């Protein structure tokens, strides 16, 4: 067993496993050797073909389409317009609004999907295992529920005239609140629903990391007279920081994307564009107003922007993880 990873080192090729490699090699005809070298690629073929056909080639195509004007009708001509699409998008207040909204989604998600789970994970580490497992099972439920179902259920709970949440609030003496129809609230409502789905997942990730912390470190600090808060600040948080970074990375890179279903089912980007984020804008350009060029140009902007953001976050994560050693 201990030799396991040594043997499976990728340098170990086919040939090394043969009893007498050199002689075998010499006897092998060129064609046979070629066939042998081809084998790994055959194993990869289905996966690589899928990625080329459905991701990488389309990515290149989106790039080309971003310099053209076209309305998605097969009979209509594609016109080369150079950088016009980009120029027009940058002149569009709607674009900047969507970009700003994307930012709000991300900022709003962090407390729900990172901070609250962190607090829960730290607070509940010493609960008796049986009740802890029950809680975990319960808070994980939103994660597996289909997003459309989540949207439908929250729409019902938040309904201004009959939703139980609004009825409860009215019982406390407030007016009905248009959680999804008030331009100042709708974005935060959708952010909340997106975060609601993630709380359990994030909590479990952080609890697992927290449980993996070597308890003797904590014991030692306690013997030195460290307070609970000092232990959290000086021991647990630094040791949790790689996991925290990973979560933040996921939320930042994927958060706006997850909210797509909720936006589409609950507000369709409204009221007044207040819930439209950049992903939803792409959808509206492409399949709402059938302007392929605009949609593709914003796709390229989005892809490049998030690519840079990802690179920056990965660099930051590498730094944090390094400090941990």
């Amino acid at each position, binding site marked *: 067993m201990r030799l396991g990873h040594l043997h499976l080192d990728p340098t170990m090729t086919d040939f090394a496993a043969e009893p007498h490699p050199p002689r075998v090699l010499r006897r092998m005809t060129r064609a046979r050797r070629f066939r042998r070298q081809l084998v790994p690629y055959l194993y990869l073929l289905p996966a690589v073909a899928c*990625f080329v056909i459905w991701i990488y080639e389309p990515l290149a195509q989106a790039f080309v389409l971003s310099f053209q004007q076209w309305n998605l009708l097969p009979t209509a001509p594609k016109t080369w317009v150079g950088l016009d699409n980009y120029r027009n998008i940058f002149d569009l207040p709607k674009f900047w609004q969507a970009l700003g909204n994307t930012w709000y989604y991300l900022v709003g998600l962090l407390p729900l999907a990172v901070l609250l789970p962190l607090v829960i994970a730290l607070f509940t580490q*010493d609960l008796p295992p049986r009740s802890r497992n029950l809680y975990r099972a319960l808070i994980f439920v939103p994660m597996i529920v289909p997003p459309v179902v989540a949207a439908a259920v929250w729409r019902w709970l938040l309904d201004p005239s009959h939703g139980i949440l609004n009825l409860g609030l009215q019982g406390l003496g407030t007016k009905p609140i248009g959680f999804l129809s008030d331009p100042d609230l709708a974005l935060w409502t959708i952010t909340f629903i997106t975060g609601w789905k993630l709380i359990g997942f994030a909590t479990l990730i952080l609890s697992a990391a927290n449980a993996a912390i070597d308890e003797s470190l904590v014991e030692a600090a306690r013997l030195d007279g460290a307070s609970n808060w000092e232990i959290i600040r000086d021991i647990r948080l630094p040791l949790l920081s790689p996991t925290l970074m990973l979560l933040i990375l996921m939320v930042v890179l994927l958060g706006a994307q997850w909210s797509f279903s909720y936006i589409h089912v609950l507000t369709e980007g409204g009221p007044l564009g207040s819930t439209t984020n950049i992903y939803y804008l792409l959808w509206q350009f492409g399949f709402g107003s059938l302007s392929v060029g605009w949609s593709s140009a914003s796709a390229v902007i989005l892809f490049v922007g998030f690519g840079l953001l990802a690179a920056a976050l990965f660099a930051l994560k590498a730094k944090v993880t390094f400090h941990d050693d």
Partner: protein
Amino acid sequence: MMTDAATLAPVRPRRRALALSGWDTGVGHALMILVSLVCVFPIYWMIVTSLRPENAIFSTRLWPDAASLDNYAYALRAVPMQRMLVNTFIVSAAVTAVQLLSGILAGYAFARWRFRGSAILFGAVALTWLVPLQVVMIPNYLLVARLGMIDTLGALILPHIASAFAIMLLAQSMRSFPTEVVEAARMDGGNHWQILWQVIAPNLRGTLASLAILIFITTWNEYFWPLLLTRSPENSVVQIGLQMFISSEGTQWGPLMAASTMASLPILLIYLVLQRQVISSFMKSGLR
């Protein structure tokens, strides 16, 4: 340095002594009960509403006084729900099968051989998660249209033939597969294909099962592709069906909640039975 035995033995009693006074435990319980309620109540409310008779749909009682299945009957009549549920099941099962297959093959290639371009190909696989579906949706839509597959179930399966996560997870578990076993099989004259399917795959049952759960649930919940690629209810999946009960003029809450319950029932049942495996496979996955 302390030995393992020395650190392990006293931890338990000592931890319990430190473990937090009753007050802290009380706060922990209170916090968890509150969060659990926020997480589960919406689902509970969905089921309760779906069971209320039409004249009590706006009732705020926490349980239905007279349970009725009228909403379910209505939902099944108004929209081809059964057909959509079957479609969703077919698509999810097919995607699970092909993604496992392509993942096993590609994982084996990455774990077993070092070949020209292997690092680049592995990087290209890993980087696919950086490309959001929305960025490639138009070219993909055009491709499906060219293939004449708009509004077919096949179009929902094809783009999901492979997933980066399945490949990377399986490559990783195959790398840590004990080589002695593989070598023994090679001595017996097994070729790569036989070793993969007769030795390695059966031994990775656990990983494959948890991967299957994850792929199935993720595909069942998928909304964006079906939204893009299906047109008629008969060729659509249940997530699209739900939307038909929501309209700006007035939502039929009873049938919507009944349809939502039906759409999440298979997932909730899987979770009820395989709770631990579901949680652990989601945690392994990150989020996609």
